[in-house]
């Protein structure tokens, strides 16, 4: 479905942040992208969404080469990101935020209305607060709005960037439940997370990034049991304890 082939990227000339990363995301799959801060996880998602160019490599969606497409074209093709830190439109209401998620489908008024209903069923609390300004919501509620926005675009692939960041543990559970239901609907997800345990529970496969390179890749079970993940986060001292 989404094929990332030997993609490298850098913010400044000569300072590579991603080094020849390859990931194959199939339909109906959830892949967790793990790694410490600065490993390049968010950069990877930025490159896939077109917010940072690749210095080399290719990205294809169902065989279509999207490497050089502008960010808005990629969203039109169904590559939708739930960004790090939620990126709310703070001065606009919840309803306006969610509706704008459907910007790429704006000609399909009826379809949008249906999707909006579905989204409100998933997140009833958002319907209650639909006239509230997005900037005044809690972290967890904003995360819900962000996911709702992504769903409005009828995505073919969802890129999720640290959904548990700054969100209270109970709400994290709720959010991961929603991601779980997305998975059941067959939407492939590329999930970047610091919370390795939760991410691996949800995923089929996992990839571990370190200093911009893939250092381990395998099934979620393999990763959860391996020392690699533990040591990446907590150091060798913890492994085996």
């Amino acid at each position, binding site marked *: 479905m989404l094929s990332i082939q030997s993609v490298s990227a850098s913010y*400044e000339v*000569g*300072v590579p942040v991603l080094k020849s990363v390859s990931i194959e995301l199939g339909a109906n799959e959830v892949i967790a992208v793990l790694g*410490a*801060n*600065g490993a390049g996880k968010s950069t990877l998602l930025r490159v896939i969404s077109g917010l940072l160019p690749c210095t080399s490599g290719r990205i294809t969606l169902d065989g279509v080469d999207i490497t050089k497409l502008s960010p808005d074209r990629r969203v039109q093709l169904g590559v939708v990101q739930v960004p790090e830190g939620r990126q709310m439109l703070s001065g606009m209401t919840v309803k306006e935020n969610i509706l704008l998620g459907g910007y790429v489908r704006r000609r399909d008024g009826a379809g949008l209305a249906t999707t909006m209903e579905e989204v409100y069923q998933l997140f009833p609390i958002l319907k209650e607060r639909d006239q509230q300004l997005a900037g005044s919501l*809690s*972290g967890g509620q904003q995360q819900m709005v962000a996911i709702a926005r992504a769903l409005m675009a009828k995505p073919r692939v969802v890129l999720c960037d*640290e959904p548990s*960041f*700054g969100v209270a*543990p109970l709400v994290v559970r709720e959010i991961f439940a929603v991601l779980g239901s997305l998975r059941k609907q067959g939407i492939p997800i590329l999930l970047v997370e*610091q*919370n*390795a*345990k*939760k991410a691996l529970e949800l995923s089929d496969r996992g990839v571990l990034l370190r*200093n911009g390179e893939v250092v381990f890749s395998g099934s979620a079970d393999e990763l959860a049991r391996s020392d690699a993940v*533990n*040591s990446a*986060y*907590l*150091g*060798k*001292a*913890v492994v085996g*304890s």
Partner: protein
Amino acid sequence: MTFRDQVAYLARRNVAFFVTVVAYAVVVSVMLSAGWLFPDVLVTTGIFFILVMSLDLVYGYAGLLSLGHIGFFAVGAYGVAILANQFGLSWGVGTVLSLLLDTGIGVLLGYAFMRLKGSYFMLGTLAFGLVVQALIRVWFSVTGGDAGLGNIPRPFIFGAEFKSNLQFGTLVWITAAILFWLSMNITRSRVGRALRAIRSDEISAASSGVNVARLKVNVFALSAAYASLSGSLFASYNNAVHPESFSLGALLDLLMMLFFGGEGTIWGGLIGATIMRILPDVIGPFHAAKLLFSGIVFVLIIFLFPQGLAGTITSLLAKYRRSPASVRPPDGQLPTALSQIPAPSGAILLKVTDLCRSFGGLRAVDAVSFEVKPGHVKSLIGPNGAGKTTVLNLMSGVLTTDSGEILLDGHALRGRRSDQISRLGMQRTFQHERLFTQLTVIENVMIGCERGADGSLSELLLCTIGAGSTLEQEMKARHEAMRCLALIGLAKHADDLVSNLPHGQRKLVELARAIAAGPRLLLLDETAAGLNDAEKIHFKNLVGRFCAHGMAVVLIEHDTDFVMELSDEIVVMNFGQKIADGRPAEISRDEAVLAAYLGS
């Protein structure tokens, strides 16, 4: 260094400038004798050269794009004219009084506008320029309104009369040369370095000890003085002042002179002013299109030619430029500052108590307390968003504390500015690298050594006349900086531009800058992030050496192995709160810590 050495060094260092000046003199003499150029052009070029220098000081160096300098120019011109017409004052007295007025306005506006961010600063200064022009037009009883004023005396200074154009021209160029020398003194001094640091990154300039606000105001006032002098000369030369000369069109001409010549060079103004003065004669027959032509040229300059002519010439001749590093190679000794770190008066160097900071409804830092002993390494770890960098920002004065106390050897840090905290002995690096990208490696470190510039007027004046930061002192500062670089292992990159170094080395430059002042407490925010294994070992050794000299270190890192090896104690944070504080072995077994990282 002997005097001869000094001159030779300066000549090689400023190759581009000397080549240009000689070429300029030759070309101008040829054109004059051939009759292609009128002496009149030379005089007005000199006058505008002074004006361009004034703008280059604030924009090219401090990065403040003032769109109102024509206002200062106008006050200088009209001041002399009005005082001569109304009170019969001589040019000299009129000029001095206008200078004082302009400088005063410069100080006021400086303080008023300093807080404004980029666009608003431009708007404010633009408004000032237009207020002056409006005042001129409207207060016609005094200024003569649209008709202008005449009868402006020529200078009569200390018995010397400058009545003829030749004599006046000489005065103009002598003044320009003196002002140029003063400007060069500033820009080549520590104040100049501090200004360029401000332009590059204000926040880290403040963290390195530069009193940003005060320096900006003083430079702004100084540039107002330059513009005033230029205006007074202008008025006297033309023997008339009209509001037309101080309109938006004049602003545009000034900006074009600056950009054509090359902002940030000071001497670029010479080229820019000459070209702009000759241009009308070249366009001559197409006078109607002059405005359109100027606009198009300006657009082209901004986009295609941002360095300007002076900048281009300097780049072309760069390989002939003598590198200052070769003057005195590093001697393998420890930087003086490092060997002189004072011991604290008690057993505890840093005491943080119940530190709190919220952003809106979010408690980013929630009653965090810990202590640091001198010569110890304390690490701050925790998941993303735990509040670690916020704690560092609160300690270093980049953010204001809501409540709680921070005591550095008994000095309360809360409420102090970054540069004040820096002078109390705390230095830091930043999570998202904040180097002065427009400066070389060694210049970055020198700012650290010098504890910035305190931005005071006396310092500025001393540097201006070349006393506050003589060549000898500069060399000494360089030497200390070289010692730091040698310690870190970057000596051979001393004169490279920071932006040309790879990531790992840039992080080390930030480290070098931070330790250059010999701080008692060093805050390192993810400085080792992105370093490869060999670099990390080197980094660890360095930290060990610093601690051996009495420096305490608080560091944030994500590589837990690294943290465990390096730290004496570890503080773990999550959701803004401290959840653990102890020795590495204890922390690695702590249930709460495991839960925080891996999820429960």
